[in-house]
Every structure is written in C-alpha cells, then in structure tokens.
C-alpha cells in the first residue's frame, strides 16, 4: 500500500505503477463529468464532432459541484463525488476513445470499466462520499466551465486541484478491484447472519417483487 503524488495530465507509466489499495494525491487539472455531460460527450463522439476540451491523459471526476461567481470568476463552494456505478459504460468508452487516465468517484464501477482500465492503462480512484467541504478546500481555482446550459451540477468544470485526496486506488490497471474482496467478506458474514437468525436465504419471503 504505497502512497503517490501525481500531476494531471497523467502519463500511462505512472498509472501502471499504481496498485489497488494504494493512496494517491492528485494535483493539476481535473474535469468534472456527470450524467448529462457524458451524454453530450458520447453523442459528439458518435457524430465525429469536436469537444471544447480535451480528455487525453486527463483525470475526470464524477462530481457535480456547488459553485458561485465572485468578481466575474467562478469559485468552488462544495465539491464532492457522486455515485460512479451508473457511469460504468460511458466511462469505459471515454477511456477507450478519448484517453482518460483516471476516473475519480465513489462506490463501485462494473467489470466493463475494470477491463478498460487494464487495456488502456487507467485507474479508478475512490473518494469519501459527501465530504464536499473538505475537497473544496483542495481546489484553489476553477480554470474554466463548459456547457453551463446543462445546469450547475451537470456542466463540465475544469478544476485546478492541489493534493486532491487522499484517494484510494479501488480498481487498478492490472485487473485488481478492492471491492471483490470486500464483497466476498460481506457475503460470508451474511451467511452467518442468516444462520443466526434462522433465515433461509433461498426462501422467497416476498409476494412482490
């Protein structure tokens, strides 16, 4: 469980060095990408249109920030992660087609993402959910915002971050996923719990669904 300081944009060799359970701090440029931004990026990709920003070698963050304007400049107020599992498909495509090197978020990502991380050299870095006041203090500047017409939470915010973290490498580029082990431990516990409570896990207690 090593600790790394990374500067984004990222290089493949430094991503390949990371192993599941490592701790990383990221400095440099991070772009927020969430539901409607994914939709727009992928539709641009499908119709071979350009984007107003590049994702090559970038770190993207599943976050919908609260921001405010002060003296004509955008300032971060609270910025934290949204649940990443719903982006498994689209994130995998961004890694494959657009060269994204790091995905920052919370919770699981699916096997399709793990495959993309392995194949193209990327990682999934896990944050603590909901701690948006804490992470906002690691964002000295908002460099730009794109697609504000999607609304504040869905726009693409280009952040300059300083030692964003600690982030835990939850899925690495070598096929390792920390959640596999955590889940099998919980499944073992559940077996014991059901036995103690005299619950038959195969029995259908429900009428609906």
């Amino acid at each position, binding site marked *: 469980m090593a600790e790394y300081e990374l500067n984004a944009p990222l290089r493949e060799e430094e991503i390949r060095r990371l192993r599941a*359970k490592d701790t990383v701090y990221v400095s440099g440029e991070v772009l927020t990408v969430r539901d*409607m931004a994914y939709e727009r990026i992928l539709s641009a990709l499908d119709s071979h249109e350009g984007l107003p920003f590049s994702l090559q070698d970038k770190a993207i963050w599943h*976050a*919908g*920030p*609260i921001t*405010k304007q002060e003296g004509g400049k955008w300032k971060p*107020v*609270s*910025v*934290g992660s*949204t*649940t990443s*599992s719903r982006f498994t498909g689209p994130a995998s495509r961004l890694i494959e087609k657009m060269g994204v090197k790091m995905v920052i978020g*919370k*919770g*699981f990502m699916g096997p399709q993402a793990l495959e993309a991380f392995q194949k193209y050299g990327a990682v999934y870095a*896990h944050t*603590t*959910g*909901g*701690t*948006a*006041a*804490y992470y*906002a*203090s690691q964002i000295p500047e908002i460099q730009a915002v794109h697609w504000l017409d*999607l*609304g*504040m*939470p*869905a726009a693409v915010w280009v952040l300059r971050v300083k030692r964003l973290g*600690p982030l*835990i490498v939850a899925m690495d580029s070598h096929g390792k996923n920390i*959640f596999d082990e*955590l*889940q099998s*431990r*919980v*499944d073992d*516990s*559940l077996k*014991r*719990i*059901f036995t103690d*409570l*005299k*619950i038959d*896990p195969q*029995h259908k*207690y*429900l*009428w*609906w*669904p």
Partner: protein
Amino acid sequence: MISKEKLTDVIVDLLKRASIRLPRSVKEELQNALRREEEEVTRHQLETILENISIAEDRDIPVCQDTGVPIFFVKVGRNWSAIREAAAAITEGTVKATKAIPLRENVIHPLTKENSGTNTGWRMPFIYYEMTPEDFSEIQVLLKGFGSEAKTSLAYIPTSEDVIKGTLKFVLDCVRKGFGEPCPPYILGVGMGGTSDIAALLAKKAFLRLPLGKKNPDPAAADLEEKLLKAVNATGIGAMGMGGKTTALAVHVELCGTHSAAVPVVVAIQCWADRQAAVRIHSNGTFEFLEERKNG
C-alpha cells in the same frame, strides 16, 4: 402573527441550517463509529467525514455538494393564520436560499431535464401538510441527496410468511445491494404497513426521528429496530463500503395498520450527511429553531 416576509427569511435560515450543520446526535454517532473502528482505511473515511463536518461549519458552506431536493413537512397548528402564506414563503425562501447559501441547482423537469436554476418548479419544493391540535406550528425540511435516495426499495410480504424474518431478509438484501454507494454509515428508515405510498412516507419520517437511535414506542417495532441494527452492522460493509464495524448509525422503524393479506415494506436510506432542520412557530409569531426535536 408572522408576516410572509419574515416567514420567507425563516425558510432561508432553515435551509441554511439544514445544508451546513448536521444534527448533534448524528455527529455523536459518527464519533462513536470512529471510536469503534479498527480497519485503518475505514477509520480514515470516518476521520475525513468528521473533518468535513467541521470545515462546513467553520466556513458556512454545504456539508455535501448534493444539497438534494427540498422536501418540507408542515404541521399546521390551531389558528395559524400564516398558513395562507406558507406555501409561497417556502417557495420564495427556497429560491433565495439557493442563491444565498448557495445550494446546488438540482431541480429539473423529469422529462425535458430543463433545470429551473432555483430548486423550485414542477411541484418543488414538495410540501406535506399535517394538522395538529397544538398551539404552535412547525416547518421541517429534509434536503434529500440522491446517492442514498436512489436506493429506496419496496416489497410486499404476505402474512402467510414470518413478517419479521421477511423484513430482515429484505432489508439485508437491500443493504448488500447498495453496499458503499448510499454513503454509509447511514440511517435506515423502514416503513411498514398502510399502502405503498404510506410505507414510503413512513420510511422517510423514520429517518427524520431524532435523537438518532431513539426507540419506537411500540415494543414489537423497537425489537425489530434492534435486530435490524445488529444484523446490518454485522455485515461488515462499514463506512463508504470500505469494510468495518458501522454500516448503519441507526435503524428506525415506523408502522401503520395494514391489510390482512400483506405488509408493504419500504426501505429508505439517509446517508451520513443527514440534512434536516425544523422550526417551531408560535401563534404569537415568535419562532424557535429546534435542535433535537421530538418525532411526530
């Protein structure tokens, strides 16, 4: 009597309190969770959560970026003349608070995805009204984030089954499926009985109960609360699903009489960032914000 302008200001203040400061018993339970925890990675999740709570309070900024959708629970006391202005004041207060705090502009049209930019529109903020014979009225707000909201589940357990075992199994299945996604350590609300809509409302009301861990006065419900809390924490999911001793800070069950055929059960989850606040308004127009109020 309280004027509409004053009531609007009270709503802004209410939303500010809810989005920035967590209830005392929630913070205490998070500290207890840290005290119990042995896994290093998980301890770190809890430390970050507690540090985040302090930063939010010190800097007067929302504790989580997902300031949710605003749901209001209004208890209308006897002779509350301001009831005529209440809905307008709640809406206007939400618009103002969205700019002033600021809250994230979350509310969209469910089909066109148009964002009003004010957290209002298309029936939002949603208001539940309840009559009370008391001399005072109360307005409570819940800012419901969607990481936990999108894990709500409904099931019907036929009365031919062991309802307690069925509920335990259903809740544990929901907890396993959600794993770390609804931001544990969380508060589980279980609504049982009535019809699906009643069970869903009761599940939300259940996690609004403060102080955290206060037992349901019905002994059967209190017994189930205890069984559920023990079982959920025995899963070892832990803070943010990183493995550990505390998955739920509390489990609250609320009951309603139901049909002899089946019991509707709704499991609702409130993430650790339990954003709620309440204000009591007296008939003479004075008001007080309630810190750890009684449930009801």
